[in-house]
């Protein structure tokens, strides 16, 4: 199985890319996909449509819950520490920056194209927005000519990719008896009697399928949009209206007192262009949205945690036959069915508006090719909540078990849940001209950005960016580009606010040379290279300062906080006193993180149909803001930050696509394979007792843990239950037969955290790949796309509830059936075959800690998209489509977990869709 996963990308690499970016005269490394391509990945969240669309973009999915299902994305893997907003690619729409809230809800119908900017040449203007790459979105604009109306509707059914359900009551109780006996010195002491076991076996006892009760089999997806575009030379328009509705998997109806998980969105966009007096080009863009998310008044993540944790035998859904009293106990108070049906509902509404206005003046009358542009962008976003709530009494065997009482439904008023505004402006002077074979273009921009959000310390971001570039092209053969950004940021101390980021790049279009111009096998060949600096000014290092989580900003002042500690009472009677404590050691030298990016690439078109793109890169990060944890404790636990972190990353991307035509059959096939890895050079790590335990020198996120060596056997203990002499003693509490045995790597006779070492890969995949193809024949079209990752590890203990049996009143899953157990009288002996440590109901620090035992290969390949379409007549196409139809993964086959949602939260979805598109 594993082998298949590794072989597939290699085959794929020999094929093609769905988005090879070839014939142009740019010097940059950019991956591009059109809005129409993204439209085929059917998902309400734009970030999830990026899967497999951009070589070099690593996407990490998690929960499939609407409203919480943004994919995390890394351009070219992990360049700096951690994964979060501080470290993700910046997003720009039509030249102005937006945030993830805005991007995730843009409809593909609004989008002309999305570009992922990867190298120094592509990022030359972005300064401190560039180090982690940029996602650049261009919206659709009207073209002069005939007016066009495009109307589309699509509808789909969505179901979980995987639901990992726990054991039924019979299996649960059998294993529970084992666990309790293990805890009583391996003396058989069953809690559940044979009578009870027989009842469950014959289907009589309480045996509730909580997943089945709280979830329905499928949800739905519906999307309708209209694009109206056209205009004259003087005025052009592209107007867009989109409605999207998504219904979730929770087993409840949308009524006055209950709501299924659901999401609705209305998008409107009007992009208008006016040409005035042959001098002025005016652009006016308005993009607005209203989004509503609703769910039962119980957090979906808590619900899934309960579903995973609540055993089947605790109680039935209702305590009475009439079905009026919800069951519940003090230990399991939140009956999952009642959480969905008995608590009312909650909704959150987001409204956002982005308005851009720009005026461009052609100043050819001054000198040919000169122009200027002034642009502004205003963005505002508000979030409000509304809910109707109630509570229910918890019943068990005819009496209530908690203080909760059944209440009638009560409506809450609207409340604000956050606001943002973002004002941006840009002045540009440009010059584009050609002198024979010499083509020159240059621009100089001055950008200003003021963002305000909610928050205590990190709500205000003011930046300035003076940037420019000169692009020179000789006869479309030799191309050179020089650019810079001089970036000003309010995060730093006076005198440290401005930083300079230059970049240079060049390309050679060999196919335009005389000696290749007429080669029949070669249609295009470009070799390019770039080198340059960019920066990043935000950091998670300050997350440790609970009260001053400033995203790495303002660290130059010696701030004290009032609120951290409270009061001390003096005097008699006591008198209230305020308290102040220092928060961190100020450091005036704090500066942005710096990235040096080197890239070489090649774009080619061979044999009339084979498009190739290859890139290799190095990204050297220095000045990463780091908490200096190497300071001794007696320094006073004073947090001290400095720019001492260093990390190197490197990798390559290769994509290929071959397209051709045989009579009426058009076909194409291709794929992409991308690799990225990194090394932590310095993160001020406290040197571990043994060098082999260090994070430094290894890729970020590498799992460091113990090396498991099977289980302790009966013979490893003496009659007193002590380990026999000569065995290394685990420092995690007393062990008994069936506990996990670890290697004592440093050979000191004690197994402890000093014996941890690299036990797998990182949680960030090293390899991402996709492959697929298209066929078109007599009006029919077929498209298929696979995507996957490899070189990634997953820790099963991150899904604690579905992995660890019984502890803290937990549940048991199929894997617990492989538990080590030895009760010869009862006929239980799994000593030779055990795949899971002996069961216990008590906390166990020895077995349930990160080790090779729990670390699994997280590789997978998924069939992401399969679409069959038929064009009935010009301008009218119908299609059926399947998303995420199947997955090949060791984690799925062995543990019944979706490798993209290994924590068992709201599932990733597969869907079956059908749609129609009409153009008039």
């Amino acid at each position: 199985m594993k082998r298949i996963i590794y072989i597939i990308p290699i085959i794929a690499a020999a094929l093609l890319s769905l988005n090879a970016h070839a014939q142009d005269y740019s010097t940059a490394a950019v991956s591009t996909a059109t809005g129409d391509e993204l439209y085929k990945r059917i998902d309400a969240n734009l970030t999830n449509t990026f899967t497999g669309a951009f070589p070099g973009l690593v996407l990490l999915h998690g929960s499939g819950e609407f409203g919480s299902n943004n994919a995390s994305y890394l351009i070219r893997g992990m360049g700096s520490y951690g994964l979060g907003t501080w470290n993700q690619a910046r997003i720009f729409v039509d030249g102005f920056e937006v945030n993830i809230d805005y991007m995730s809800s843009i409809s593909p119908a609004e989008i002309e194209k999305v570009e992922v900017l990867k190298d120094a040449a592509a990022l030359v203007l972005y300064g401190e927005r560039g180090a982690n790459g940029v996602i650049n979105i261009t919206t659709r604009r009207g073209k002069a000519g005939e007016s066009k109306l495009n109307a589309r509707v699509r509808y789909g059914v969505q179901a979980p990719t995987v639901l990992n359900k726990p054991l039924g009551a019979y299996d649960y109780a059998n294993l529970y008896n084992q666990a309790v006996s293990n805890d009583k010195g391996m003396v058989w002491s069953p809690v559940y009697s044979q009578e009870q076991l027989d009842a469950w076996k014959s289907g009589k006892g309480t045996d509730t399928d909580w997943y089945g009760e709280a979830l329905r089999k499928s949800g739905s997806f519906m999307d309708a949009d209209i694009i109206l575009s056209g205009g004259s030379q003087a005025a052009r328009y592209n107007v867009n209206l989109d409605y999207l509705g998504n219904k979730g998997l929770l087993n409840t109806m949308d009524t006055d007192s209950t709501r299924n998980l659901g999401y609705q969105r209305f998008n409107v966009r009007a992009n208008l262009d006016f040409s005035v007096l042959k001098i002025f080009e005016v652009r006016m863009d308005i993009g607005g949205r209203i989004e509503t998310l609703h769910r039962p008044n119980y957090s979906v993540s808590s619900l899934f945690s309960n579903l995973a944790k609540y055993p089947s035998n605790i109680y039935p859904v209702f305590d009475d036959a009439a079905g009026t009293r919800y069951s519940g106990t003090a230990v399991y108070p939140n009956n999952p069915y009642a959480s969905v049906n008995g608590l009312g509902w909650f909704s959150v509404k987001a409204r956002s508006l982005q308005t851009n206005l720009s005026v461009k003046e052609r100043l050819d009358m001054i000198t040919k090719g000169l122009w200027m542009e002034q642009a502004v962008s205003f963005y505002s976003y508000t979030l409000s909540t509304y809910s109707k709530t109630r509570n229910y009494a918890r019943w068990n065997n005819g009496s209530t078990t908690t203080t909760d009482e059944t209440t009638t439904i009560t409506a809450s008023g609207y409340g604000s849940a956050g606001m943002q505004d973002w004002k941006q402006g840009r002045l540009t002077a440009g010059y584009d001209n050609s002198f024979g074979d010499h083509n020159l273009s240059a621009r100089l921009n001055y950008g200003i950005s003021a963002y305000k959000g909610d928050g205590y310390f990190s709500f205000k971001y003011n930046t300035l960016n003076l940037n420019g570039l000169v692009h020179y092209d000789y006869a479309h053969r030799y191309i050179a580009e020089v650019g810079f950004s001089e970036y000003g940021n309010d995060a730093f101390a006076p005198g440290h606010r401005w930083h300079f980021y230059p970049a240079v790049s060049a390309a050679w279009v060999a196919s335009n040379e005389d000696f290749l111009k007429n080669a029949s096998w070669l249609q295009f060949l470009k070799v390019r290279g770039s080198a340059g600096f960019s920066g990043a000014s935000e950091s998670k290092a300050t997350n440790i300062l609970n009260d001053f989580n400033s995203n790495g900003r303002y660290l130059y002042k010696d701030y004290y906080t009032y609120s951290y500690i409270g009061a001390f009472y003096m005097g008699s009677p006591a008198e209230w006193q305020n308290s102040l404590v220092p928060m961190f050691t100020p450091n005036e030298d704090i500066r942005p993180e710096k990235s040096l990016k080197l890239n070489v690439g090649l774009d080619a078109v061979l044999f009339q149909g084979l498009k190739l793109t290859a890139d290799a890169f190095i990204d050297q990060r220095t000045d990463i803001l780091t908490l200096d944890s190497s300071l001794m404790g007696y320094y006073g636990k004073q947090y001290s930050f400095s720019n001492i972190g260093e990390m190197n990353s490197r990798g390559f991307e290769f994509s290929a696509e071959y397209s051709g035509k045989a009579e009426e059959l058009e076909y194409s096939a291709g794929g992409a394979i991308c690799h990225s890895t990194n090394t932590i050079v310095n993160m001020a790590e406290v040197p571990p007792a043994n060098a082999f335990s260090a994070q430094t020198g290894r890729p970020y996120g590498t799992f460091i843990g113990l090396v498991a060596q099977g289980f302790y056997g009966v013979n490893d203990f003496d009659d007193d239950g002590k380990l026999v002499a000569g065995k290394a003693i685990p420092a995690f509490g007393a062990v008994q037969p069936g506990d996990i045995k670890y290697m004592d790597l440093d050979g000191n006779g004690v197994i402890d955290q000093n014996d941890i070492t690299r036990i797998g890969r990182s949680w960030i995949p090293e390899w991402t790949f996709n492959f697929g193809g298209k066929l078109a024949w007599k009006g029919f079209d077929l498209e298929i796309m696979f995507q996957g990752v490899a070189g990634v590890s997953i820790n099963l203990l991150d899904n604690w509830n579905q992995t660890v049996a019984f502890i803290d009143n937990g549940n048991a899953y199929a894997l617990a059936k492989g538990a080590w157990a030895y009760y010869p009288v009862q006929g239980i002996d799994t000593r030779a075959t055990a795949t899971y440590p002996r069961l216990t109901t008590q906390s166990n620090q020895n077995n349930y800690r990160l080790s090779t035992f729990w670390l699994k290969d997280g590789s997978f390949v998924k069939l992401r998209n399969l679409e069959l379409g038929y064009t009935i007549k010009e301008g009218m196409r119908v299609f059926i489509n399947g998303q995420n139809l199947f997955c090949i993964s060791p984690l799925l086959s062995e543990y019944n977990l979706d490798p993209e949602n290994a924590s068992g939260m709201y599932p990733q979805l597969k869907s079956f869709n059908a749609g129609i598109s009409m153009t008039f």
Partner: protein
Amino acid sequence: MKKIIFIFFAICLVSSCSLFLEKPDTTGTVDQNAVFSTSKNAGSALMSCYRNVLKHGWPGGMGIGHCTFGAMSGEIGRGYSWHASYIISQQGLSVNGCDGSDAGADSYANSWAFIRQCWLVNENIDKVEGVSDGDKAIVKAETLGLIAYRYMGMFYRYGGVPIVRKSFSATDDLTAPRASVQEVVDYICELCDAAYAVLPEKWDAANTGRLTKGAVLAIKGRTLLFAARPLFNSETPYLDNGSHNDLICYGNYDKERWKAAIDANEAVLAWAVDAGVELLNTGGAGEGQPNPNAFDDYGKATSVFSNPEIILAYKLGQQEGWEPLVNYLCCSAHQSVSRFDTDANGVLTNHLEKYYAADGSEISWPKIGETVPHVGGEWTTKVLSLEPRAHADIKFGGFDSDNNPGDYYWSNAGWNRGGYAADKGKASSFPDPINDEKGCGERTKFFYHAGSRTWCEPPLFRLAETYMNLAEAYNEYGNTTKALENLNKVHNRAGLPAITETDQVKLRAIIQREDAIEFFCENHRYFDAKHWKLPDIANGICGGPMRMLQFNIKNDDAATWPYASKWIDSWWDSVVYNFYWSDAMFLEPLPQTEVNKGTTVQNPGYTK
């Protein structure tokens, strides 16, 4: 034209950016200059030193999220599975910490953070305008006293620790290895002496609670007592630590260390006379006679804020819900927010057996291994025969709390969770436990006549401790007469007839028992037992079998929950769990992360 454009940009740059990027909008923050610019702010900084430093070892100030030391030293049950005491009961003290601690049952790092806060105030107070030089000197002395207090706490937890004489800056040489036991004792005495010279004898009413001369004398007194006790005052350490034995042991036994402890504690007594601090004994029975007002005097001494017996208290009054001091100390039904966290902290038989009968005789409690349970009525008789301190300390199973008579929420009926290990029709459970969390009753100490108040001010030094320190030190130094004189101050105050034992070994055991009773729940036992190196430490003191009384309730419909004591049908003692012990636990471990940095040596037995 181009020139004009560039000039335009240049103007923009110069004019706008200096303002636009000027100032971080960090509302609600102050910097160091602001703190030490006004006496109000500087006072606040000093108060946070008090609040942080003195919390050492109390809930919320241990470094661990839940529990009290009593739950780790045979006083009360170990709590719930998420409590540090429970985890430690299973696995011992860990170099990686548990339940939020950075190692063992303490936060090593917090101690240093708070010492640094003290040094910052000490070093910057001179900048404040409008405060007299005399007041500044006192503030400095207070910070020195607070530093000494924290060093004292670290001293008996870890042994030798690094000596820090200022607030470090990032450019300082930070190699400071652990100092020896001797050096740390000297340093604490040095700090106390310096503070003593400046601090006032006593404070006016508005400032009661701040350090006095007596407080620093008491710090010195306790430090020197611990220095004289067998764990440190010994030729060989409890476990060999190679070339670093001086970090955990003096390397010789010197009887004169007891003399030093005597002198230091006598100094406290001498100060107390002048400052009006006294052992509460209002009965007027006279020297050597049982105090007829014992219950009220002991109750007031441990519960009433700023009472005359207090030398220093932790004066943090904060209502339930947020404050761990409330959440883990107050068991009363008045506490409604986090009371469940005290649910599994029933009083252990291990502690109950320490109490005397009110007439000074012994009470015979059920024993493990008995073949039949005891009959119910016996429980009532035995409880009623207990000495007054037991009644102030514990709400016994089926009884109302004597601490707050007439208050429904302190009564058995209003206690609202049973409060002892009782269940109906459980005769067949004998000799196994019915319940392993509730024991014979729950704590009520610190809540004498508290009513609905859920917080308390735990005493850090009461004059009773000074007498007990003297009793112990005199006995070890060979002066039995003085030992008995001091012991009986406390023993008589508790309403008990005077002790007359003159055999040093037997008297030692009596003194240790008196400490265990008098300072129940006051964070003494956990350290005392270790520093006395009690031979049975792993057999029911800090480690080993922990026992709780079990109560079978009559199977009678009239017996309704919460069961009054009259419904007890039979009762017995059961081992409810075994507390983990290894000899390494005589001292706390240092955090592994700190040891890994290379300069600091771990205590023996944890890891090498």
